[in-house]
């Protein structure tokens, strides 16, 4: 792939080959055009970049380290390294793009940040960014998720965000997106929509990717400094795909690095029991962009499930959809049980409790290590698992208790 990848993708209309674009009603078209123009103008300015760099260092605590997993590698073979996004402020990579989006909002003179959240991670990160910049924050969340993810709801409220319950449909992430879009369209002048991943209409997939590139830029340098070479394999979990794009983006030109995106295999690969979008979906349009999409026979977005609430989305970022077709990234599947096993392995062998989303990537790295005992593997550990501990204990229990 040419070195000017980032100049070519997306094209000026937001397309990554056939994927992406802006499939939105005209009311939104004009607003998206304004955000795109502002993003191009402001995000490359010296002031914007230096302010964001300062935030990354002094507020978020970046760079996050790359860590070699001694005991995990000893047990399974290979050399497994983690990029520690769990040590980013708020405990996940999501803050990387939230601080960027909120800084852009400040430069645009917006007063309010609006977003959806599923598990609450994006909501917490955005509420954090809003507090930092002194902006209002409105988070739309399905009633079902509000009950399931109670601690994150409390966090958002402590941070001063207004949490709006969404009561229609299945009352989860997809409906929360609808509701947040609707709220945004009522006042696009004073508010800005801050999407939670590399999804949505142009310019969001590009913007969120650009803000997440910091993961890959740091990790590549750090890995090289530690080992004198590049990793043989890079692994990340894929929900919408923001943490994966963040780390993959640094390695797209390096033919010697194999990239692996891990999708949630859920309970089984039967319809409704997984969210393996790229493995089992086909091209379609959801929430304003074209991508691989799980859908039913009518073309309605399909029912999805994963043990990790941050991964259960029927669509996926347009750039991933393109990278799949170009065979630049291998997309694979890890199921719930393998994820839970990896969750405990990393906790007990390394003293790191991973988010269930990230545990998907760890599980796949373990498989790769077993199959390739000499290989080096860099895993993006996108977040910490504190949010998941009650759920895991209740649903699965401890390994010694027969899980």
């Amino acid at each position, binding site marked *: 792939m040419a070195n000017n990848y980032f100049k070519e993708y997306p094209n000026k209309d937001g397309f990554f080959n056939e994927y992406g674009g802006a499939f939105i009603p005209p009311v939104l078209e004009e607003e998206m055009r304004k955000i795109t123009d502002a993003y191009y103008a402001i995000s490359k300015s010296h002031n914007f970049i230096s302010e964001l760099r300062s935030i990354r260092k002094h507020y978020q605590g970046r760079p996050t380290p790359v860590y070699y997993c001694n005991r995990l590698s000893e047990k399974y073979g290979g050399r497994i390294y983690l990029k520690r996004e769990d040590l980013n402020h708020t405990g996940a990579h999501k803050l990387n793009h939230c601080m960027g989006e909120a800084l852009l909002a400040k430069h645009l003179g917006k007063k309010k940040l609006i977003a959806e959240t599923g598990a609450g991670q994006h909501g917490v990160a955005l509420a954090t960014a809003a507090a930092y910049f002194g902006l209002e924050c409105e988070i739309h969340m399905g009633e079902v998720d509000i009950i399931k993810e109670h601690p994150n709801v409390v966090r958002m409220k402590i941070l001063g965000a207004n949490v709006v319950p969404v009561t229609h449909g299945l009352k989860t992430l997809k409906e929360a997106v609808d509701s947040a879009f609707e709220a945004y369209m009522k006042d696009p002048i004073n508010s800005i929509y801050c999407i939670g991943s590399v999804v949505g209409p142009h310019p969001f997939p590009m913007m969120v990717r650009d803000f997440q590139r910091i993961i890959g830029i740091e990790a590549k340098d750090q890995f090289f400094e530690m080992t004198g070479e590049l990793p043989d394999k890079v692994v990340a979990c894929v929900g919408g795909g923001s943490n994966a794009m963040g780390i993959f983006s640094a390695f797209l030109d390096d033919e010697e690095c194999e990239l692996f995106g891990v999708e949630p295999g859920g309970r089984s690969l039967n319809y409704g029991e997984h969210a393996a979008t790229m493995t089992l979906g086909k091209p379609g*349009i959801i929430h304003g962009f074209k991508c691989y999409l799980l859908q039913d026979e009518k073309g309605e977005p399909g029912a999805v499930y994963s043990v990790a609430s941050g991964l259960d989305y029927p669509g996926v970022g347009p750039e991933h959809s393109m990278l799949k077709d170009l065979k630049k990234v291998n997309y694979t599947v890890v199921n719930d049980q393998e994820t839970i096993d990896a969750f405990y392995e990393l906790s007990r062998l390394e003293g790191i409790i991973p988010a269930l989303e990230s545990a998907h990537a760890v599980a796949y790295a373990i498989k790769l290590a077993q199959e390739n005992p000499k290989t080096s593997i860099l895993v993006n550990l996108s977040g910490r698992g504190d949010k998941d501990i009650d759920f895991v204990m209740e649903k699965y229990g401890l390994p010694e208790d027969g899980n």
Partner: protein
Amino acid sequence: MNKLKELFLSKKNILSIYYTAGYPNLGDTVPVLDALQSGGADLVEIGMPFSDPLADGQTIQLSSHKALENGMSIKLLFEQLADMRKTIDLPVVLMGYFNPVFHFGVEKFLAKCKEVGVDGVIIPDLPFDEYCTSYKPMFEAYKISNIFLITPQTSDERIRLIDKNSTGFIYMVSSASVTGAKANVSDQQVDYFKRVERLNLKNPRLIGFGIGNHDTFIKACDNAHGAIIGSAFVNLLTQEGASKEKIGTFLKDVRA
């Protein structure tokens, strides 16, 4: 001649009604259409329900979800409309979101529209540029009008471009918002209506979003060739079901 063209040549103060297919009951699609014709509507837009209707407010979101629950689909809609041209003279337009159409197959969809006698299509989330590059020749081959939405934010230049590349009519969204019945029309909206009127477009214009009663309808007719009523009519269906009598009264009250 195309039924849409014929309508706009022969009539003023066009009253166009939107409703969701398969709502309130799966079998109501055709009875509502019949009632609209006998009640005196000029044009009908039948909504193909979708689970994430980004341009629609609460009322149409709810009717869409109910219709999907009832089992509505594009395939079934074409089955229901198969014989409509035996009794229906009104121009009929289908309105819906792009993914179900894309999934059904755009060309197959247009062929079906032609077969059952649908005159035009409105797909609010199919961008104009994407239409021009990928689908325009297909629409032209099947002689199906593709109708585009413009808003108060759409520039004159773009409105002209849309006018040049579309047929049927131009759907003027009354404000920067989603669908939903509102009580009145503001001065700001009137300024926008006037601005578009001065562009002297080749296509007729209908005003939609927020039109729901006699007053808003008249105001819209002062500024365009007519208006589209959606949410207010869907509310009627919610309350009264597909009652021919109530539908007739509703239409009469709007025109009054």
